[in-house]
């Protein structure tokens, strides 16, 4: 997959508010190529059952901040 120069330059112009020349875009290209290559690797990965790893814990008793060293 390759995204056209016009699309990429339009995104920078509209979202970032400045012009990116064709020469500058060539300097960004390796990063975009990497991104597109990784997307292709993810194609066969089933992600519908993956849960968030977020975990909030309430500090309690001797697990709280004080008295644990660190200072």
């Amino acid at each position, binding site marked *: 997959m390759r*995204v056209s120069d016009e699309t*990429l330059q339009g*995104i*920078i112009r509209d*979202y*970032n*508010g*400045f012009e*990116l020349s064709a020469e*500058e875009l060539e*300097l*960004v*290209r*390796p*990063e*975009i*190529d*990497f*991104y597109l*290559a*990784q*997307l292709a*690797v*993810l194609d066969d*990965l089933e*992600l519908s059952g*993956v*849960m*968030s*790893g977020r975990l909030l*814990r309430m*500090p309690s008793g*001797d*697990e*709280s*901040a004080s008295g*644990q*060293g*660190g*200072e």
Partner: protein
Amino acid sequence: MAGHELLSSTISELAPRIRAGEVSPVELTEAALNHAGAMQPRLNTFITLLGEQAMAQAREEEQAIARGEYKGPLQGIPIGIKDNLATAGIRTTLGTKVLADNVPEEDAEVVRRCRAAGAVILGKENLEEFAAGATSNNPHFGAVRNPWATEHIPGGSSGGGGANVAAEVTFASLGTDLGGSVRLPGAFCGVVGLKQTFGRVSQRGLLVTSFNGDHIGPMTRSVADSAIMLQALAGYDPLDPSTVPVPVPDYTAGLGRGVRGLRLGVPSNYYYEDLEPDVEDAVRRAIVALEELGAVAVPVELPAMKYIGAVRMAAMSDAIVTHEPFLRASREDYGPDVLYRTLGGQFVLGHHYSKAMKAQRLIQEEYARVLQGVDLLVTPTTPLCAPRIDAAYVEHCGERHRVRGAGSGLVSRNTSPLNATGHPAITLPCGLNRDGLPIGLQLIAAGFREELLFQAGAAYEGVSPSLGRRPAVVGG
């Protein structure tokens, strides 16, 4: 003990002598500042050297010790701070022209903790611009040079710190590690570099950072010193919700326990692929050495590493968000490597970011599962040794790789996965390649098990071929 003899010691060697009044923090700091001044033209490790302030701090600590107010092993010890960690009243540039005049009002939490422990801050250390790369070849403040071979990079982004520790300028330096930026200078400069568990150390005051996976960790000349530093840094910070309120153990307690019976997982995929031959030889020899000390090495599989590149997609997206205000106001002040690499993140779509985060979760689960069967994973820290400063590309295993800027990533391929999973990892010197450049051995533990890294690291350190080796700039 006088002059450079003092500076080539370690924190754990000096601390009892400072406590006993045999070594003066003032004399130690004066010697460190003189050495820093002599090394600066050769290594370019500092952006701001704090001569007077450091001496004043050393005098305060010396007087406190004389009054019987001993704070612990860091008291009176000269250290360096990476210049992306906020220091109250002291310029904090992040290595960029964009923030060349930035003076924070408050210390980063880690800086506050170091000061509270009595450490003397010698200066703010040079780094990759915005800490966004692995070379420390800074376009605004000049390239940091590797003390083992000054035409080579020290690794990055905390290159000033790694080079200072190796060159015996600082006894420890605080770096930050988003993809390996503590462990890479550790490996390339032949010192110990620790990235502790995500959530173990407060990130408050780490400037212009990522939303996902940054860590603050120490570089030191010994494993014991790494343990001493983490003891000072670790702990819950109620103002940083990424820190976890779990007890902080005594990290030095297990240093002499050895490795008998420890199970070492040696990944059979990803980490040992495409290595510089000298790196693979050194790391395989290190595993044999650990087995001779009583550890048991077993092969392990990490199949989800096939998807590790996805994590970089998320990092690209995070970077553009972080840089958005600076790009708007000061795009022309950016160096090209960081500018064009960062702009790549503008094109990552939201649902691809979500895919990347889910892939990251699967990889985290896999490491958690594997680390139930073994105590540690053992890998090379980097697939190659330090490239030359003037190299835009390196030929590696038959392919051409970018060293810096957009599309680079070879140097950090073995370190960045642990930023995604959050697991603690340490790099230890394990010999030199045929050109005399240091090689790093990486140990990885389950979350919040840093004491295992120190236990195994201290055992290996005693038999490492790097034991007693010093870089050329200090007469090695």
